[in-house]
Every structure is written in structure tokens, then in C-alpha cells.
């Protein structure tokens, strides 16, 4: 019993990690809070859903298209909407991403209606036994996929040239500019990666979770908690915090109260803000 609760908590945690790490990358580099992160998750899920419906392929096979599409969308949001207001007050940036979130979420509601949709993958509801625990194949794919992507992000940020540029911009954007880094392009790429990670999360979750216009709202808000818990700008911290919150929420939902399982996360959030506003990890304001 507990083991299967743990597994489904890990799935949820993996999704939180991807969404939260993407959000934190965007925050760490561009210094804006992307309120549209949850709406982008929902959009990615619908994106995948429509490809599955039109082409009749397996949801997991839509991954490259969704990731590329979401990355492009993120790139375009940054270059057309955020870059023009970088010099303005922070309000403008905050409220613009908020406006994007309203547009995407309610646009989906208006276009596709409030119906709950779902897709079926070739793995279906098959399970396998591992160390005496019954695990759904789709759950295993989600946990494994999220871990691989987080690992790849870590390698990219630390080993590649672009990753180094991103870290440089996140630490000192003025000095990075002096060193010849095209800061605005780095911003756009950071937003694209943050958005593409949401795309990964959406593909991994749709064989397990329902698809509906408000599905992203909860994930978007919990991504903020993930970010605060992991430390603003700390991508690794966010990944760990995401897993922690997913598992905590699931255990609480099963053993205490399902209705209050989201409220417990907010409680954790408020306690973190009270006692450790810089996050539970020591390094802060650093990407990677």
C-alpha cells in the first residue's frame, strides 16, 4: 500500500520537478516570475492530445513535436512580449505573464470546452512487478523520463557553452553582456527551455492524468511553492523540492485527507516563507 502511494507520489513529484525547474530557470536567468507556467502545461497536454487525435500515434511519440513546439512558443513569448518591457517596472513583466496565462487557459476553455479528455498509450494500464511493488508502466516512464530530463538539463547547464552563457547571465547579466554574450538571446533560450520542460511534463503526464482547461492551474501554483522551497533561481533545488512536495501531497491525501492535500502544500509554503525564505538549500540565486 505505502509503496504504491510512494510511486504515485513520485510521479506527481516528477511533474512538479519538471515544471518547477523550468520556472526556476526562467526566474534565475530573466528574473521574472512566469505566471503562465501552469497554463503552458495545459497547452502542452492539449497539443499532444490533438496530435494523437489527428495522426493516431502513441502519446509518447508526440514528445519531440510537443517539446519543439513548446520551446518555440516560449522563445516567441520572450522575444515578442517580454523583451520589449525588460526595462520597464517589474509590474509590467509580472502582469504580462499573468495575461498570457489568462489568455491560454481561458482560450482553451472557449475553444475546446470544459470537457475532460484523455488519451490512451500503448502501455495502457499494464503494470509490472519490481522489488515486490506493482508499478504502472506509464508511472515508471514518467518517473524515469523526468529524472533523465532533469539530469540532461543539469549536464547542459554545466557542460555546454550555451549552458555556461546561461549561468553567466543569471549571475551577472551586465558582465555577461560585456563578455560578448547576447543577453536577450540567452533570455529567449532560457524561456524556451523552461517552456520545453513543461512540454516534457505534459507528455509524460497525459497517459495518467485527465486533460481539461483548468488542469494546469494547480500545477502552476504548486510550481511556485516548489520554487520557493528549492530557493528562487536554484534549478537543482527545485527538482528536489518538486519530488518532496509530490510525495508529501500524495501521502497526506491517502492517509489524512484528500480534500486538504493541496492546503498542506500551502502550509509548507507559508512555513518556508516564515523560517527559510531563501529556500531549504544553501546556494541561492544560482542557476544549476
Amino acid at each position: 500500500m505505502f509503496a504504491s502511494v510512494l510511486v504515485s507520489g513520485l510521479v506527481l513529484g516528477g511533474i512538479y520537478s519538471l515544471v518547477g525547474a523550468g520556472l526556476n530557470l526562467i526566474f534565475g536567468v530573466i528574473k521574472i516570475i512566469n505566471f503562465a507556467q501552469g497554463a503552458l502545461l495545459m497547452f502542452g497536454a492539449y497539443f499532444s492530445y490533438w496530435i494523437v487525435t489527428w495522426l493516431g500515434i502513441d502519446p509518447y511519440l508526440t514528445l519531440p513535436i510537443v517539446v519543439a513546439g513548446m520551446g518555440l512558443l516560449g522563445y516567441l513569448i520572450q522575444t515578442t512580449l517580454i523583451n520589449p518591457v525588460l526595462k520597464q517596472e517589474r509590474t509590467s513583466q509580472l502582469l504580462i505573464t499573468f495575461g498570457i496565462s489568462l489568455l491560454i487557459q481561458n482560450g482553451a476553455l472557449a475553444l475546446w470546452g470544459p470537457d475532460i479528455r484523455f488519451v490512451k498509450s500503448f502501455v495502457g494500464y499494464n503494470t509490472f512487478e519490481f522489488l515486490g511493488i506493482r508499478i504502472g508502466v506509464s508511472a515508471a516512464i514518467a518517473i524515469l523520463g523526468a529524472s533523465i530530463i532533469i539530469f540532461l538539463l543539469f549536464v547542459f547547464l554545466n557542460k555546454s557553452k550555451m549552458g555556461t552563457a546561461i549561468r553567466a547571465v543569471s549571475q551577472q547579466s551586465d558582465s555577461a553582456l560585456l563578455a560578448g554574450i547576447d543577453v536577450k538571446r540567452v533570455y529567449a533560450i532560457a524561456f524556451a527551455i523552461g517552456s520545453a520542460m513543461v512540454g516534457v511534463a505534459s507528455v509524460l503526464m497525459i497517459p495518467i492524468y485527465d486533460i481539461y482547461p483548468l488542469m494546469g492551474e494547480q500545477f502552476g501554483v504548486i510550481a511556485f511553492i516548489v520554487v520557493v522551497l528549492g530557493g528562487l533561481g536554484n534549478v537543482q533545488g527545485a527538482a528536489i523540492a518538486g519530488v518532496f512536495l509530490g510525495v508529501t501531497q500524495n501521502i497526506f491525501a491517502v492517509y489524512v485527507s484528500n480534500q486538504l492535500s493541496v492546503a498542506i502544500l500551502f502550509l509548507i509554503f507559508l512555513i518556508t516563507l516564515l523560517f527559510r525564505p531563501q529556500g531549504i538549500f544553501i546556494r541561492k540565486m544560482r542557476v544549476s
Partner: protein
Amino acid sequence: MRMRKKKSTSEPTSILTIPGLQSAGWPAFLGIAVILIGILAFPVAFDIRFYFVQVGILIMFYATLGTAWGIVGGYAGQHSIGQAAFVGIGAYTSTLLYMKLNISPWIGLIAGMLLSALIAAVIGYPLFRYGLKGDYFALGTVALGLIIFELTTSFSTITGGSQGIPLKYEENPLNFQFPNRTVYYYIIFIMWILTVFTSYKLRRSRAGFEMLAVRDDEIAAARGGISVLKAKLTAFILAGVISSAAGTFFAQFILFLDPGTVMSLGISVQIILVAVLGGMNSYLGGTLGAIILIPVSQFLASTFTERPGTDIALYGVILIILMLFMPNGILGLFRKSPKWRKIVGW
């Protein structure tokens, strides 16, 4: 010499007195008088449908909320994204006291305001202290809005949950319930005018200047001896208290309460849009924004009933366009002219 001496002795106060409406002279006062009489006479002078009175009530309701948001978002520069939480606290406090304990909503109004002040202080303190950046505050208020929403929905035995809670109707002014529904128009009028007056006075008071200083440069303000935490908290509490009072009014007006109508994210969005559209740094911003946006939103909501979400999606577009091209709102356009600047109180 005498003049000079006099000037220097009166200086400490003169720094804090900026020319306001007085400098605009009698045309401004005449204009204000005409507008106020027009608003007061509106429901009785013409034989209009109650629907229009209702739109007037909604406009003043959102004008009150927008003006209150302007205090924390505009003056102090702290963007509260979950302001509807306070509307909900006000509405549910008075309603639950009335329904469960039979306490008059007038007392519930005060109780809601006190509770809102307490919650604003408890939430605001950790978010503002240690000079945490404004981002934390925005995040924290989103969380506050959602936690209050979730709790209200979860504790359905007390609050009626998502089913909502109908208010019993007993005609008695002591119970905030009147035989003639036009009375609500005048009640919200009083709330609105008090809020605008508070906002106007605050802008010209020491506390108001401290908020502006904190907004414009927190470090310099702290160096100048201003308590940054106090300035932000005052603004947040004041906005919360006013929003709570408006929430109590709204519950009594619609006589039915569920989490979706008083504290959904959509309400918070509407409050922000109203303030941003009008110009959040001016005491008139919320009012102007509400006059423009509420009729539009009524129209959009009734036009797109088959496609719910369209109106809020359009709000999103409006918000993006406003932020890209007119971040200071409509009244912000007047801030370049020295004469108008005083009148709109930028």
C-alpha cells in the same frame, strides 16, 4: 530675510504638502459636485430599469476594490495577485456570523475587517521582512488566494463548500437588508466615496509619501529612516480591510455566497485590471477603470454565454496590450502635464 526665516521654519510640513485639488480651483470642485449629484440622482431621477442601477452598483463595487488595490499595488508597489481572498473573508465572515449565530451583518462587517487586517498582517509580515523582493509577495498572495479558496471549499460543513450558502432574507435595516434594493446603491456609493477620499488623503499624508518612497527605491527609503516593512504592511492591511468591507456588502447584495463568486482568481484579475487600466498610481484610477471595464465585462459575459472563458481570455489580451503600450494606465497619460498631474494625484 524675514521671508526666508519663515520659509525655513515651515519647511518640515511644506515638504509633505503637495498641491492637490485646491490648486485646480473652482472648476474642479464644480465638476466634482456635478458628478456626485449626477451619481446620487441616477437611480431616482430617471425611470430606469433596475438592471442599470445594478450595473452602477457593480461599477462602484469594483471601483472601491480597484482603488483599494491601488493603495497596495500603486502607492506601495506591492502587487497583490490574490486580493479576492479579502473579498471572500469579508463576505464569509459576515455571512457565517449572520447565518449561524444571528449576528447582524453590520457587526459582521467590522468583524470581517478586523479578521482581514489580522490575516494581512500575518501573511504580510513574513513576505515583507528581511527585505524579501516583491516577487515573494506576488507569489505569497497567489497562494493566499488559493488557500482561502481551498479551505472554504473543503470545510463544507461550515461554509456550504462549493454548493454555496444562501442568505436568509429578513427585511430589516439592522440586518443590512432593505425593502428597496436601490438602498444598496447608496451604501456602495458611501463605501466608494470613503475609499477614494482615504486614498486621496493617504497620497498626501506622511504615510503615503513613505509608501511612494519605498516603491521607488526601497534601499534609499530605508536609508532615509523610513520603516520599509511598516509602509508595505500598512498598505497591504488597508487594502485588505477595504476589500473585506466591500465583500460583506457584496454578500448582502446578492444574498447568495459561494467561493466562485466572491474569491475566484477571476475576481482578483478583474480588480487588478480595473486598477491598471485606470492608472494604479492615482486615487481615481480604480474608479475610471471600473467605469470603462465593468460595462464592457457585462457585455462580454452576456455575449459569450455559450463559450465561457472567452471574456477572461480577452481580459488577458487587454492586460498584455496595456502592459506593452500603456503600463501607466489612462490617468498615467496625464502625468506629464503639471496641472493635470495635481488633479489626478499621480
